[in-house]
């Protein structure tokens, strides 16, 4: 809106345009309607609080999609309700590592220790099967940076898992 000092439209307007997308994303990851709605609400409340941090060069859809993914991943803690999604996440990490790691809980714990941007990159790349270009756009950095973050994560993950005697 031309009248607004922020480069983002008000959260209520963003909700009308992107709310359904955000809700679908949260529901896809969390699997449950109530949890998805809570996560959706948190995304837009965060827009209210942090909207001034929005990088104006990107479409709001990329920012909100990333926030919806992160909000949902942060809620993937219920081992029973989220078992299938955690398995999927762990399996994707196993693919990324290229190692025959069978200890799912170790992989999940490893992921939970990662910073938000790394978890987001791993999820987008290996669970959503996005291209590097798409991941870079959503995360808001260059493809080269995404690639470097991935390599750093994989290297540290291998070291960590080897230290625990899990990976060869």
């Amino acid at each position, binding site marked *: *809106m031309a009248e607004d000092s922020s480069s983002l439209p008000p959260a209520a307007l963003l909700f009308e345009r992107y709310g359904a997308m955000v809700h679908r994303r949260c529901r896809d990851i969390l699997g449950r309607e109530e949890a998805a709605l809570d996560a959706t609400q948190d995304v837009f409340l965060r827009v209210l*609080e942090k909207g001034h941090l929005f990088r104006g060069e990107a479409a709001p859809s990329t920012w909100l999609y990333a926030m919806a993914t992160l909000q949902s991943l942060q809620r993937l803690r219920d081992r029973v309700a989220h078992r299938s999604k955690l398995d999927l996440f762990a399996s994707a990490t196993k693919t990324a590592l290229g190692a025959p790691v069978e200890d799912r809980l170790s992989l999940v714990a490893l992921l939970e220790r990662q910073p938000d941007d790394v978890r987001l990159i791993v999820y987008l790349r290996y669970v959503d099967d996005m291209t590097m270009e798409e991941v870079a756009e959503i995360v808001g950095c260059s493809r080269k940076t995404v690639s470097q973050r991935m390599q750093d994560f994989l290297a540290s993950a291998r070291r960590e898992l080897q230290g625990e005697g899990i990976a060869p």
Partner: protein
Amino acid sequence: MRTTAACPSDFALERFLLGESPRGAFDVADHIGGCDDCREKVAAKRADDAVFLHSPGAADVRRRLSFPERSDRARRDRPLLVRRSGFAAIAVVAAIAAGFALWRAPSAPRSTVGAEDDEQVVLRVQREWMEAIRDKDVAALDRILADDYTFTDSRGRVSHKEDSLRQARATGSRMKAFHTSERKAQIHGDVAVITGRVRTEGETGGTPYDAEAQFTDVLARIDGQWRAIAAHASSLSAK
């Protein structure tokens, strides 16, 4: 997850629905035109848009976004309150009523005969809406506005149906005439988006006004009737 290597990601389909053009040479619209699976996904998302935005859950999120200063529990338990402050200044523009929800992809297929009929109907309903504001016809407004209707003004302030009805009952301001131009309607299943400009004349608190705004109205077919669900207006008058 993609079904084939050639299918776009879920996010690419979402952006297609939003009418955005993702970076890269891959033409999502062309792909969807030839991929039954992706076409079904897009159709499902489009249907989900309408269902979600009319759901009680979405209405609850809207209310919380309108009152971010309150605690979660307080917001959850709070009835549909209205924001009172600042409404006098925006009463006229608020009455213009416009909306925001542009999930239509430009190249998305449209229905033909039905869509044309619907366009005429929603434009008529929108005009009746304006007339109801001008005539302070509370019953007509109550019929036209959906229960979870929200209006957002140029400053991002959000009001609800009860505010509009209260405005109609109030005697302090009155729109005497309106003139719309550049009105266009887009039909997306059970959702319609109307854009245009409106100039209004009247008086508020004894002071005459002459205001112009760009508006976007969103109507939805609810139980067979087109009703307003959201609106937004940007003032084109001096700030």
